[in-house]
């Protein structure tokens, strides 16, 4: 650590000085978000309730209650085993998504930071691009090949 910091030199006080990371933002601005989430929930639930009250209720029969399969009785279980391709896409997404989330604080801090710190970020992105190149070379999202 100390070798690194002597290499880079002191960063100087940050945007917050020596303030801790979890210094609070104004709570007041979070309240509408909570209210909005609750309202959206209520709106959807109320309308569904209304449709339950107003809606037509006809007697059910096995054919009506069956899942749609082009008018034929459903043949087999709908939850078949799925291809590993979907799982792979989800893994790739999670990995790259973490990268994007890491990049956001850097982007916001970018204009205040000393210019040489750019290379630290370049290293981070470079390592990930290496991983991207390897995965693409191995044909991870090449769905047409089979």
């Amino acid at each position, binding site marked *: 650590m100390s070798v690194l910091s002597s290499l880079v030199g002191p960063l100087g006080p940050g945007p917050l000085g020596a303030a801790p990371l979890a210094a609070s*933002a*104004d709570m*007041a*601005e*979070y*309240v*509408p*978000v909570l*209210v*909005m*989430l609750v*309202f*959206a*929930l209520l*709106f*959807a639930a109320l*309308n*569904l309730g209304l*449709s*339950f009250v*107003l*809606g*037509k*209720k006809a007697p059910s029969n*096995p054919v*009506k*209650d*069956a*899942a*749609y*399969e082009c008018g034929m009785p*459903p043949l087999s279980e*709908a*939850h078949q085993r*799925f291809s590993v391709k*979907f799982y792979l*896409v*989800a893994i*790739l*997404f999670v990995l*790259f*998504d973490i990268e*994007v989330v890491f*990049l*956001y604080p850097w*982007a*916001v801090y*970018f*204009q*205040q930071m000393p210019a040489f710190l*750019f290379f630290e970020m370049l290293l981070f*992105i470079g390592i990930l*691009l290496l991983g*991207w190149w390897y995965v*693409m070379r191995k044909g*991870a*999202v*090449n*769905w*047409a090949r089979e």
Partner: protein
Amino acid sequence: MQQWLDDLIAGTAWLQALPTGLVYTIGILVACKLILLFSSLLAGEVVWLERRVSGRMQARIGPNRVGPQGLLQFLADGVKLLSKEDVIPATADRPVFVLAPILVYLGAFAAFCVIPFGYGLVAADMNVGLFLVLAITSIEVVGVIMAGWASNSKWAVLGAMREVAQMISYELPLGLSALAIALLAGTLNLTDIALQQEGWLWNWYVFRGPFAFAAFFLFFTAALASLKRAPFDLPEAESELVAGFHTEYTGFRFAIFFLAEYSAMILFSMLAAVLFLGGWSPGFPVDLTGPAARWIGFGILFAKTAFLLFVMIWVRWSLPRFRIDKVMYLCYKVLLPLSVVCVLGLSLQVLLGEVLWGDQSAFGRWLMGLGVHGGIR
């Protein structure tokens, strides 16, 4: 929001007589309800717009009977759907089946609370606004996979798998191209981002050099894909998957999916207008932050949003549908590396032009951007 309420209280005598906390409470509740109502009505009107524009493009008329020019068509449709029978398949997983449309609705509507409709016309002026939009819209994915799984129908499961794979994949270029703007703006607060683009046309972020220009198109393409709009509408491709994940949904449950889809269109169009097209700036220097002028700003932002919505509909009738493997290829092999290049190029441009050299003229920015572009090539 708080600033606005404070102004309102300071300007109105009878509000000062009331306790401040009560005014805040009622103000927040009313504002949220208004935004919800507005976006729901707008979503209905966008359905009408889509049908009318589609009709015109196919040399027919489209709905024009209910209300002037058919503007009230969505109300008639809504009432009809409300009175429809609510069928839940016998093999469905009932609690998950019921919960899924509510989650999708939540993911599409709740993010409107951080979108600035004009200066100060925002429910939650958060300093992580842009990030919040990305977070809340990712809830929708969970709703979709719940709907598909709970329906226990082959079409629904297949459609949901495809749709989820597509939506999450395209969140990456979407997030990265929005990140490019965060880089230019130095903040995630959407009001601040819009304010920074005031003044002449070349202050709009879309015109801040070649990388920002490219980032706008990357953003729009990725938004189209994560909205599963044509040409990326294969999760709901009616010719192969019936209706995708909502095949088994009837009545108002279906209507909620439909509304959520159109509201997400409005959300992303508005976000694109705020991030790239100058927000409420008309393209020449004018102060739109006054208490009355901000509504003019709202009109200007609305016009930009409507234009982007029209482009989305236009694209639908211009391009044929992609194949699923091409969709994945486009995301991971084209859009993702391109958006990383955009972010890196923009950061170099900012570093060279605006940090080391001091703030540049618009021409200088383009020159710097082109220089970086040439250097990369």
